[in-house]
């Protein structure tokens, strides 16, 4: 087994092991549809959805903003920067800047509102 396959297997086992600590969340991707300068509004994009298993590492709630740190498998999501938002427990969060992706696991901060 190659080193990459071996690491991927370890990551898969870890995500299997956390079982119900993980959540199924829905990442929402919006196809860029441009901007209409006559109406001065963004053209409504088409959305597509990817459901994947995600571990919420921690949550910060400072009464104005809720920030969650998410960890998920790269193989489940692909390019995280293609997504705009994520729905967790029925609440929509915006993806924060600078997600980290080591090609096995993606770490991303998300914010409500």
């Amino acid at each position, binding site marked *: 087994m190659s080193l990459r396959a071996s690491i991927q297997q370890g990551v898969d086992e870890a995500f299997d092991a956390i079982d119900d600590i993980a959540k199924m969340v829905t990442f929402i991707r919006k196809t860029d549809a441009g*901007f209409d*300068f006559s109406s001065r509004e963004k053209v409504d994009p088409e959305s597509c959805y990817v459901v994947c298993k995600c571990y919420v590492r921690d949550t910060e709630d400072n009464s104005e903003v809720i920030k969650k740190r998410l960890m998920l498998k790269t193989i489940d999501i692909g390019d995280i920067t293609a997504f705009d938002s994520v729905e967790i427990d029925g609440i929509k969060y915006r993806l924060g800047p600078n997600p980290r992706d080591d090609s096995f696991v993606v770490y991303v901060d998300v914010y409500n509102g």
Partner: protein
Amino acid sequence: MGKYTNAEEQAYSVFALAEWKAEDILTFPANYVGKDITKDYIRVQVIPSGEGVNRISVSGILMVDIFVEAGKGTKALTDIADKLDLYLCNKSFKTSGPSVTQLFNSSLQLRGLDQDNPGLYRGVYSIPFIYTEVPQ
């Protein structure tokens, strides 16, 4: 509408023209989040920061950030600036009502590699404007 909205509407109207769209230069406003931009593009913002001739008028600068591929010289950037001049320099725009936005002469600054994306080279095209509305 107020002077800020009207000034923006009139300044943006040029980028809604079919002729501008035919130039095939991707055009976005400030505070726009886009994805997968793989060609040269511009980012437009109206900065109504100056005084007007009356309380319902305002002056300011129309700033256009021009982003082109880094490492290939400045030709693409100046080409875009010249095209902007054709549509903006010494032009007046009017949408509806007793108001007009008048643009003056432009200038171009080369700012070097973009801080957020060093794969892009950035220039700033700016052109002062006056939005004037006559009280009814």
